């Protein structure tokens, strides 16, 4: 069965530190990839998405992610985090065809210390 792994469950960083959150998926076919963020008390919102083309995707608030097909990975990065990036981050995968389902990872809680 298709699955998504987020290896970092809790991450604590100081402001200005660099961030990289790992995401690996198990499906071998063509996929669409997403990162969502949930700020405290708010609803899930899209950070960035990958459909095709350039494997380096830029999203909102200075986030980017790189799709590495050979590694089945879609890691999220930010060069310098801010206190306001404190949130829970979810990676999601959807097969490009044949299903309506999105598979989510278990999430990574990021805490940024001021």
């Amino acid at each position: 069965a298709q699955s998504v792994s987020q290896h970092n469950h809790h991450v604590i960083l100081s402001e200005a530190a660099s961030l990289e959150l790992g995401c690996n998926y198990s499906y071998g076919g063509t996929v669409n990839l997403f990162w969502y963020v949930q700020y405290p008390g708010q609803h899930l919102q899209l950070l960035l998405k990958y459909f095709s083309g350039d494997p380096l995707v830029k999203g909102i608030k200075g986030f980017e992610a790189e799709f590495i097909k050979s590694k089945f990975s879609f890691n999220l990065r930010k060069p310098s985090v801010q206190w306001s990036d404190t949130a829970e981050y979810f990676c999601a995968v959807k097969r490009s065809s044949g299903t309506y389902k999105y598979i989510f990872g278990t999430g990574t809680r990021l805490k940024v210390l001021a």
Partner: protein
Amino acid sequence: DVKVTQSSRYLVKRTGEKVFLECVQDMDHENMFWYRQDPGLGLRLIYFSYDVKMKEKGDIPEGYSVSREKKERFSLILESASTNQTSMYLCASSPTPGTRSIEQYFGPGTRLTVT
């Protein structure tokens, strides 16, 4: 902007009660989804619907049912609430695959407590 609304932010129900969670989206999306979100488990799909009156089971459908009588509305029903259904319930919608914008849009969630 797409808006997905859920009928309640917080709900407290007693064991054995029938519970209705309502979700409405205003962007004419074909697909709608119900998830539950639990700490350490991420989002788990309960049911989804790809058209009016059409539904499919997700990964954890036991104890739940759904209804989609109108395109914009998708209801989650707990036939007989139990304490292990205490959770955050998230509704989402998305347009039909084949467009570039197929990400899901989420509602604010309903935190359900069953006592």
